């Protein structure tokens, strides 16, 4: 028969939300239900046993809950860092258009892509520091003109936009892309500059 302390720990760990004292009492069949004071005392004991551990028991407005103390956020946050996914196709296409057609307005990007642009994409690109507003087109509404930044060039290890494959070769991009993939596989990320097509 598990101890009261272990049962409370189990229930709090399994719960997905804070639990009020009454809710904690309800997990016991009536015949075995502890008194409220007993429960409170055991909860205090449990809280004390977490000294120096990776978990703490606190009481918030909606009840008791177990949480990971703030001290551990440097490690815990790296858990999600390690799980970064990749950017959406829409974002990459938008970025590609800004790179090759800059300065460009949002409306122009939408016209080429044939779909309207979700707000998040331009925000993400700006937060990442890869694009910035460089002016406004003098048409009704004065839409912002976007261009790439130095940070963008740095990330891709480019000295200037001229090092990118020329847009004129766009029809050849399939070939270039395959070539790049091949080289990227062969080379380490350090040799990014070496991935430029030799005739570019």
């Amino acid at each position, binding site marked *: 028969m598990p101890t009261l302390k272990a049962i409370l720990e189990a229930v709090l760990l399994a719960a997905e939300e804070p639990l009020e004292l009454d809710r904690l009492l309800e997990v016991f069949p009536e015949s075995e239900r502890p008194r409220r004071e007993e429960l409170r005392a055991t909860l205090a004991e449990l809280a004390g046993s977490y000294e120096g551990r990776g978990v703490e028991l606190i009481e918030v407005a909606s009840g008791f809950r177990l949480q990971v103390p703030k001290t551990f956020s440097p490690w815990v946050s790296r858990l999600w860092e390690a799980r970064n996914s990749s*950017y959406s196709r829409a974002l990459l296409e938008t970025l590609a258009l800004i790179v090759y057609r800059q300065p460009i307005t949002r409306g122009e990007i939408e016209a*080429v892509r044939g779909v309207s642009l979700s707000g998040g994409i331009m925000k993400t690109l700006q937060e990442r520091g890869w694009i910035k507003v460089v002016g406004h087109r003098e048409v009704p509404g004065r839409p912002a003109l976007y261009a790439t930044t130095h940070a963008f060039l740095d990330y891709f290890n480019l000295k200037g936009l001229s090092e990118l494959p020329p847009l004129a070769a766009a029809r050849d991009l399939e070939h270039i892309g395959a070539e790049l993939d091949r080289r990227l596989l062969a080379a380490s990320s350090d040799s990014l500059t070496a991935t430029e097509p030799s005739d570019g």
Partner: protein
Amino acid sequence: MDTTTELPLFAKLHGEPYTQLPRDLYIPPDALEIFLEAFEGPLDLLLYLIRRQNLNILDIPIAAITRQYMDYLALMQELRLELAAEYLVMAAWLAEIKSRLLLPSPALVEAEEEDPRAELVRRLQEYERFQQAAQALDALPRLERDLFPAKAQLIERPLARVPPPVSLAELLDALRDVLARAEWVGRHQIQREVLSVRERMSQVLERLDALRFTPFTALFRPEEGRMGVVVTLLAVLELLREALLELVQAEPFAPIHVRRRV
């Protein structure tokens, strides 16, 4: 339908057999229905009949089992339970086995034929093994029922995520796609002025008759090219959606016909 043979003797009280259900043991009228629906198929029903009578699966009395099986089938049909085709296939098989067993034995032995029951026994056993495996699986401790992931809340979900990496190749790949699509979109916009879907809807309706069916393929003019075919198809779909025409196909892969709805 005689179901009394299926009903066990309920109990003996002071030596007196009870053949009627005690009044306090009320079985709801649809209990039998639920009971029959609980079978997972003909093999399951057969295994049930075999187990209930403690029969050896290697030596099934085919005649008796066939009779009981047929009784159940008749009952299910009487209750208008939807009977899967597999049940009827099994009934036919059982009947066949029964008739083959009635053949004179010398013929059986000389032909070195297998016992006609062998294949049935094999399938029953095979199914029984997986029934047992399913039970064993169900008995394993599992999340949500026996085990619960232990979780503690995070005070604040850290937002400092490292942004995803991007390769130059990916970027060029994206550019190729968007340019290819831009060409398509551009051409489409020009074509749309010539062949609007609305316009084509009117043309299709004009060509159709409310009484006679027109072959679906007659609506398309190959000389209009790919875009023309697409616009016509869109027009037909739009007309269908607006319930202005109906499509008829006699059987799968048969020609499709179309007529105006009145």
